[in-house]
């Protein structure tokens, strides 16, 4: 009897326990995410929607994308500049599809494109719900269109046709479109942006750095040129948003000066900023506010880097009196002309590493005849290497010439002294001088030769600080021979692209955009061959002329641009994850 009561009690108790507990507590399996935000938790405020668009800009704050992809392509491809270190495959056009920076470029561009695609949807909703004002909503939509179009512009310019992803949600398996179709998309995005963006004149100072109508017209015009639509390109370039709001700075050297960022000539530049340390621990990688771009190319003697350097022939090629020369490339015996560097350091002699090295008689390479930091007169050096002993770097593999456009940030010291390596200097992607030169090309292409020459004159006059010589002629050839005056208008444009824009983010894009010349070769191949006497050689050549012509190799290649290598290989990783992508022929 006792047993029975016990049993009944137990079974009853147990029956209660057997009822799944979660039925008592209905939400037992529902947990709240306290680490990351869902869409519902975000985009409640207008500033969150602005932040959504800010993140698209952020994708471009990347050294691999800017320097090792776009800048390398724009400059190494033209042989004006070379790499030293791990990326020397660029010097003879044997870039591997596994070159990682290309994948960073590809990735960031598409991440930005999808961010823009989803921003277009979210902003539209936010606008409809009144989370953002219609005016702000329009501006933000314009920025999203602009940034998407710009990403496609650089992708197509570098790789040829790329996949067009135009929706927020994509598996990413779209095959490549043609190069023309991608530029058509750029035009479409830029035309929308032209309507939605603010004009440079109305953009609040606090928003400086955002895309403007003028920038959109600039990229639209460039994209029209890629399609050979020179008349449409001219229309874009002639829009008052461009012609009325942007101006050449009086002094060429100021264009890239640290204290002239976001200047009146600049259409669009990637912004950087000091946030945290300027050294390796400062968060410089993807999206970091500082970038390792500028002192990357300083001489090894100063920075410990020297990962890119100039072709001596570029320096020789400047016409006499052209102020752009020393503001672009400096070599043995050349002092820096940057007003900012001179103000801060008094020139090269002011760097701590120069002073310490001069005091200790430091030789960058033990085999050197003279100390590295003694000038030709034996005093402390104030030039970019001495004539008697150029700065070839610790392993003597560099040309002795370095990029002066990227030697402007007075806060940087390289991997020396206080070790300020990562800089905050903005990177100008498009500026008004390029618009003028492109417009010149359009005019020449459409038969308006005088109009074209007038545009070229605007740019050249500034380069000479007033009035340029009427005869247009390069300085010496790479091997020290005199040149003939340039008479072909198209060659004038190409020469000006080079002398105005080399060491920036445009040169080779513009050369390739020029397409095939009447000779049947591409303008780019001919132009490079004419400048440097390129041939089938694949290894470095001793330099034939000038202070560095000592019969030894100093990292100068003269490889002809092979067919098909005028565009970059589609990154192998991208193909690996999207088998629908086809590699460019020739890779």
């Amino acid at each position, binding site marked *: 009897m006792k047993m029975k009561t016990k049993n009944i009690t137990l079974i009853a108790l147990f029956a209660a326990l057997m009822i799944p507990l979660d039925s008592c507590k209905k939400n037992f399996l529902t947990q709240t995410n306290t680490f990351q935000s869902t869409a519902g938790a975000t985009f409640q405020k207008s500033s969150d929607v602005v932040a959504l668009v800010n993140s698209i800009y952020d994708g471009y704050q990347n050294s691999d994308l800017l320097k090792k992809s776009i800048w390398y392509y724009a400059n190494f491809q033209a042989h004006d500049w070379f790499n030293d270190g791990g990326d020397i495959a660029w010097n003879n056009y044997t870039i591997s599809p596994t070159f*990682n920076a290309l994948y960073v470029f590809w990735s960031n561009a598409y991440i930005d494109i999808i961010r823009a695609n989803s921003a277009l949807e979210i902003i539209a909703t936010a606008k409809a719900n009144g989370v953002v004002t219609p005016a702000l909503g329009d501006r933000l939509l314009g920025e999203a269109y602009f940034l998407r179009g710009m990403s496609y512009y650089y992708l197509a310019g570098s790789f040829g046709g790329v996949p067009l992803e135009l929706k927020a949600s994509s*598996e*990413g398996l779209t095959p490549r479109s043609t190069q023309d179709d991608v530029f058509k998309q750029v035009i479409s995005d830029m035309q929308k942006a032209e309507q939605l963006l603010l004009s440079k004149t109305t953009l609040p100072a606090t928003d*400086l750095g955002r895309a403007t109508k003028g920038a959109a017209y600039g990229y639209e015009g460039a994209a029209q040129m890629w399609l050979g639509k020179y008349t449409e390109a001219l229309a874009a370039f002639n829009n008052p948003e461009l012609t009325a709001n942007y101006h050449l700075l009086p002094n060429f050297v100021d264009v890239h000066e640290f204290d002239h960022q976001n200047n009146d000539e600049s259409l669009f530049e990637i912004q950087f900023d000091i946030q945290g340390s300027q050294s390796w621990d400062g968060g410089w990688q993807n999206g970091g506010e500082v970038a390792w771009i500028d002192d990357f190319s300083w001489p090894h003697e100063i920075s410990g880097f020297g990962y890119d350097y100039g072709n001596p022939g570029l320096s020789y090629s400047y016409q006499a009196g052209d102020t752009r020369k020393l503001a672009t490339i400096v070599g043995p015996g050349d002092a820096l002309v940057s007003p900012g560097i001179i103000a801060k350091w008094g020139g090269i002699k002011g760097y701590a590493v120069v002073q*310490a090295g001069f005091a200790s008689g430091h030789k960058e390479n*033990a085999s050197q005849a003279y100390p590295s930091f003694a000038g030709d007169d034996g005093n402390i050096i104030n030039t970019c290497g001495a004539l008697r002993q150029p700065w070839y770097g610790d392993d003597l*593999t560099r040309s002795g010439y370095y990029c002066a456009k990227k030697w402007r940030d007075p806060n940087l010291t390289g991997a020396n002294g206080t070790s300020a390596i990562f800089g905050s200097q903005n990177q100008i992607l498009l500026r008004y001088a390029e618009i003028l030169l492109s417009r010149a090309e359009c005019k020449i292409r459409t038969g308006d030769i005088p109009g074209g020459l007038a545009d070229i004159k605007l740019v050249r006059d500034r380069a000479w600080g007033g009035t340029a010589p009427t005869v247009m002629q390069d300085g010496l050839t790479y091997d020290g021979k005199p040149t003939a005056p340039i008479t072909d208008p198209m060659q004038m444009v190409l020469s000006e692209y080079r002398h105005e824009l080399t060491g920036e983010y445009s040169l080779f894009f513009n050369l390739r955009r020029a397409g095939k010349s009447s000779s049947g070769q591409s303008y780019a191949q001919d132009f490079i061959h004419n400048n440097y006497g390129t041939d089938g050689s694949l290894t470095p050549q001793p330099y034939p002329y000038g202070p560095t012509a000592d019969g030894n190799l100093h990292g100068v290649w003269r490889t002809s641009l092979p067919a098909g290598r005028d565009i970059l290989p589609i990154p192998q990783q*991208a193909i690996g994850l999207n088998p629908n992508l086809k590699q460019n022929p020739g890779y």
Partner: protein
Amino acid sequence: MMKDVLFNKLNSFKRVFLILLFTAGLCLNSFAQTRQITGKVTSTDDGSSIAGVNVRIKGSTIGTATDVNGVYKISAQNGAVLTFSIIGYVTQEITVGGDNTYNVKLATDAKSLVEVNVVAIGYGTSKRKDLTGSISSVSAATIAKVPVTTLDQALQGRAAGVQVTNNDASPGGNVTVLIRGTGSLASNGNTPLYVVDGYPVSGGINNINPNDIATIDILKDASATAIYGVRAANGVVIVTTKRGKKDGGTQVDVNAYTSFQSRPKEYDLLNAQQFATMALQAVKDDPAQQFTTLANWSNPQSLTNADWQNALYRSGLTQTYNVGIRGGNEKVQSSTSIGYFDQKGIVLGSYFKRLTAGLNLDYQPTKWLKSSSSAKYSYQDSNNPYGTGSLGNLIQLPPTLDGGNNQTSQISDGKGNYGFFNPLYTYVAKYSNPIYSINTNEYKNITNYFLVNSSLEATVYDGLKLKTYAGINYTGYSGSYFQPSDSRLIDQYGAAAGATGNAFYSQHINSTFEWLWDNTLSYDKTFGKHTINFLGGVSEQESTYNAMGGSVIPPNNTIRDLNQGTNLLLDKYGNGQVIRSFASQFARLGYNYDGKYYINGTIRRDGSSQFAPGHQYGNFPSGAVSWRAKEESFLKNVDWLSDLKFRGSWGRVGNQHGIGDFTYQALYSAGSAAATSGNLGYPFGKTGGDNGTYQGGIAAAQPENDNLRWETDEETDIGADMSFLHGDLTFTVDYFNRKSKDFLLNIASSIQGGYATRNLNIGSMDNKGWEFAVNYGHSVNQDFHFDLGLTLSFIKNKLTSLTSGTNFIQNFGGLTLTATTSGDWDSFTRTYIGQPVGEFYGYKAIGIIQKDGDPGVHVSDLNNAAIAKGYSFYYKATTAAGDRIYEDTNHDGHITADDQVSLGSPQPKFFGGFTLGASYKAFDFNAYFYGVYGNKILNYQESNLESFAARGSVSIENVSQQYYKNAWTPTNPSNRYAAIHYNDVNYGDLVPSSVWIENGSFLKLKTLTVGYTLPADLVKKLTLSKIRVYVSSQNLFTITKYTGLDPEIGVQGGNATQNGVDNGTYPGSRFYTVGLNVTF
């Protein structure tokens, strides 16, 4: 004296033997007369007394057990048959004759070393003969044979179908356990579920003291595992710890051993003189003159040799002590144990210390109510500052420090000075002195672990039991790292050497608190020839993870306070709380007819908070049948066949490894702080040289996937269990077909879609295999007993599908191999549909290009052929004599990434273990071999040994003697070793290729043990019941063709797509152990 003892012993053996013979003869003539029979039960192994032996009169319910001294008393009639049985020994019967004393010697049961008769099946137990599923068991006796750190190591080779690999030999172990192959692509997705005393533990099991383990049952097929539902796909390992016995006695065990571990094998590298000579030559040979040497190297004879391997490796020492006290009576049984394990590793700075304490308590206050409690605690202190991964760098270090520190050129001068590499010389500047770091930095990794559970079981009716079981599992980790400031470089070299290395201090704590509550109802009943058993239950589990941590630059070298430093960085996603919950219902129903025909079905319904609402539940059913043919009348009297059983089963189980929290949600992130990488904001409003204003950014961080679901495995198993020669020979065979699908992966996705990775259910895979287990044990005579055991497993793994648009998946997650050209080594495996997971992938190397005029392939021929097809050159522009030739597998005329092909699988064709055990008088002997056959290893280390150009940055590195002496030169036309180059980017000799793929088959003598049990008389004088001393050696030899240090290399980074990659794992070496087992 000794002689006398042996003599007496022999006499007593003889006596017993004669008595047995006599009684056997008498049994027919016996007559009924009840009287007191007594005697002592001892082991044939060593003569020690055995406590707790069940002594029963056959055919009655009368029985007793031996006491702590092995003595029994029982009333029996003449002619009665007494059975003596205890787990681990062969059951013996004697027939009572004229004597009143019957001493019995029991032989150890060979089978019981691998198979015990009661098997844990999850929420209950079953007799082995009644099993319908495939379950392997490993007993305490087996585990005791091998000195192991963690219990997973003890499973190696012991159970068919279970592949255990010591991924590296670091203290504390890094072991992979694969039960029936690779069934998931997810990181750590192939880990079995461990259930300790009924509690499914989520972490590893290296917190459990192997000495506490009574049995390990490995549930392999889906019908056996399905009761664990969504956690069951990789098999279930049920660990049962030792409990006290009811016999009224007390047993005290003391086990201790000391193990010396020899220094590991080393690579034969260049010394300073050879290295400098090589560098000088390479400079000379470099057509592009891309680098220079350090001035000090110009006179190689003057250099001080820096032998990094010699400095880093040392001999190891392991000590362990365990004390267990077990005993009890009918009402209360308890088992207490304390263990201490201390291993000093063979790599400088590495160690593992573990203190464990356990208490198992069983209490049965009344006939119908029983409680069972178990508490386990462990404290672990471990450190491995330069382990797997880092060790890959060791062989790269240039063997000279000359021209660096002007205080010393030695690695360490013993006066507190450590050599360093010249910071201004680019080609060695990236390297640092690991000995300095290990000796100077401070590391702490402490884990406290509790596993506590209690159950209350009521038998409310005959066969009907209700049970409630609750437990908690707590893991608390606390770790810190301190690195003092280092100004040595700038003190000597000034500003050019960079900045002073700041001091750094980081501290992290985290804890996981988990509770579990199960309620089950079971009913077991036999009605005539019908037996049914039923189990039903509900279970809930919730775990809360808390973490905090950060790092600072501390104000000085003493302060260890995050609050007093500068640059405070809190751990991203490491400062907060995550809760996971889990709810389940399950049932099992079994029926058998007459012990011949069995049918069994289980179902489990699991719900998890890790999936989207509406997609949280999954159902996991299974069914099995078995037929004990031996019980059929036509086999019952077949003498040579002791047992024969056939089994067949099917089940569906799940896998939830690889899924994180909230991976189904669309998430937006504001990124990291402005000053850090990965921020999403951007500055605006900058004019001139001023700073702008940073504005934060928000971007999508993860795309939504509401449809994320469990990985599912469906498995069919057909097996047979056989036993011959009165049980001396047993044989088990199983065939299984395991189909896994919907792998939960955070997988690299085409970046065109905007996300580098996505959480997806992708693909399917097959594992088909055969498992064999054979055991033979035989007592030749009273003195000599031996047993042999063999397990063999053949598993064929194959990927059967992937997501649309792709037909392969490349290695992802975890392991990164650096290359001379960035990107070259990103992909080193590719798993194609139809091929096994993790196949190596690269170029097919077919020799070395020879100099014009020499026999062989010439670069001009290769290039001309390429040019004829419209390409500029065959491979690289600079390819020349001395470079590797790769096969143009797609015959397009030149070498590109498209010429890469599959180069072999890291998965073995078969693997197995072989045990040989024997005892002769007081000596016992055990040898245990483990081997795998038919797998390939990617010897990435070898590619480093043949690389003068450093991986990952502008530097040079050391190479092997083998390479240095055999490398191609114009006068040494090697067809295997490429020329020595700086900057492989121009040559491509070091890309993933068949050169680095090697045969990974091996046979290892894992353990060899010889033990001696002291004579019983002597032991008695010490008032002990048993003393055994033994010597043992582990890893005595390995037979292999693999040229690296150790072919035992498993899954790296827990990811099946990076299996068998030798990237410099913590090396193994020989252990020499001296041990002592004492029983009071």
